[in-house]
């Protein structure tokens, strides 16, 4: 992984804020701005978005004056396995049902660490699923379908 310097971290940071500010400014302009007396839905967000973009500019300008510091490693493997977990749960919980869906995401998230071995991951996923079904489904009575239409015969 390429090690970036502190300057570029801050420059990127400034750019991100300018971008976000720009996005919110653009979106606010499509709304009714109104007047200071009777503010429309766009008034307050527009003001905030402009401030955000300006702060981004300040950060960007400052970044040219500060000394460097490494960017550090990026958890690519972590992102690849952790971030999909809630998405997969969202996509499958209604179709597969609570139990298979939960097992699936526990298994996915287990592989986020490079140290995880496959048999261990399966054991952990089963344990999590059993525990959650007992606690959430039976004890707390959350209204989830345990098995959904996709896995019913």
């Amino acid at each position, binding site marked *: 992984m390429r090690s970036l310097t502190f300057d570029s971290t801050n420059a990127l940071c400034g750019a991100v804020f300018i971008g976000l500010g720009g996005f919110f400014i653009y979106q606010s302009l499509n709304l009714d701005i109104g007047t200071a007396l009777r503010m429309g*839905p766009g008034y307050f967000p527009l003001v905030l978005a402009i401030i955000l973009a300006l702060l981004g500019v300040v950060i960007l300008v400052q970044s040219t004056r500060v000394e460097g510091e490494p960017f550090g490693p990026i958890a690519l*493997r972590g992102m690849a396995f952790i971030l999909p977990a809630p998405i997969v749960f969202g996509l499958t919980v209604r179709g597969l049902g609570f139990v298979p869906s939960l097992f699936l995401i526990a298994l996915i998230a287990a592989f986020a660490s490079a140290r995880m071995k496959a048999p261990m991951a399966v054991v952990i*996923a089963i344990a999590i699923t059993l525990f959650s079904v007992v606690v959430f489904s039976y004890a707390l009575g959350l209204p989830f379908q345990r098995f959904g239409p996709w896995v019913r015969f």
Partner: protein
Amino acid sequence: MDLFSNLALGFYTAASPENLFFCLVGVLLGTLVGVLPGIGATATIAMLLPITFQLEPVSSLIMLAGIYYGAQYGGSTTAILINMPGESSSAVTAIDGYQMARRGRAGAALSIAALGSFFAGTVSTFLVAIFAIPLTVIALKFGAAEYFSLMIVGLVSSVALAHGSIVKALAMVVLGLLLGLVGTDIYTGAPRFTLGIREYADGLNFVAVAVGVFGVAEILRNLEGEKTRTVLMSKVSGLWPTREDFKRMVGPVLRGTVIGSALGILPGGGAILAAFASYTVEKRISDKPQEFGQGAIAGVAGPESANNAGAQTSFIPLLTLGIPANPVMALMVGAMIIQGIVPGPNVAAEQPALFWGIIASMWIGNLMLVVLNLPLIGLWVKLLTIPYYVLFPIIMAFCSIGVYSVNSNVYDLYAVAFFGFVGYVLVKLRCEPAPLLLGFVLGPLLEENLRRAMILSRGDPTTFVTRPISAILLLIALAVLVVVFLPSVKAKREEVFQEED
């Protein structure tokens, strides 16, 4: 006397078997996450928030509060035994606590920390009880303009106390405010920033944002460089401090309690700042300053008392004004709103059992912590040997269940992933997530009060400076901002946060 009848009601509520149970669960969970470095109280509360929705409002808030101060206790155990703060507020404890442990006095250090915390917790619980009512009375006089100005004070202070660059922290607040506005405009019903997704018309789910920005982002950060921890000692003996130790801890504990209580009330303040302030004071007034860093008892007793006192008194602005002082309190606001309670001065009058129950439970929880923690230290130490990779799937599973259970809205789960990513990117860009969350919670309130104040004053913006309370609050906000930007303070501030890392 009113205070005593109120406290009696509180203890009656908090001592019901059910609430005692949830208080216990809360403090145990809190200690657990406090002990584990890398997983903070904020992340845990964010993750456990949804689970508590199934409970009664009182029980759920008691449990969440328990997690918060339980984490303060647990954090110090890790700090003393492995020289790594389990919680950021116990970073100072690690300095002298670990040195005591290396000299074979781990047991004494742990019990000094626990006893100091308990004393501070007791005093500050009473402070919360004493100040709650008068402040509520003042708060009831607040109009839209005052609320707006008060929130500005809160946001500005959170900026002042965030790590790193002030400008970045300001930008994070503003971004948080903007994200808080996503959803339907309250006056006109116009959808804002929903990108045409109907499921976001009610706004972004607070729990999803909190879990993403704090929970998921924190896991990703832990996954960056996986390290193995070494525990200094598996067996801790000689728990009870000697008579000499007691004599030397009295002063620091008392001063720590005062400092912590005062700083905890400040919006944006709380436990971390209190611990640092106390350490600095103890070092300055000590007749043997060279002992600090070599295992000084005062260096453990003072900061530990201060961080616990600060943790308790940061409930004061929340319970009386409905304004969160730090991200954990912002999460409590979220919990109250979802339970159908509007945080603010009316809570004390309308829900006395809830209000006083929470206050009383703090003292009960602190007692539980002292009684439980010292005997259970062996267990907590064992916990430190659990490999982290086992925790990640567990946390992700609970997060997903929790977030989904709030509204059964799958879009909330997508928001978790999205904000997990955003949170991680922001962390990598050295932006502190705490101000963002505070802004997110306060965004809609801020806008509503601004618009209402403007309508009431017929579009005259001077209303914020002509109303005395509002003017004073804005002056405070301005003063804080000026002070942080002063070169000397800026240098000192960077130094303090440097030490913390």
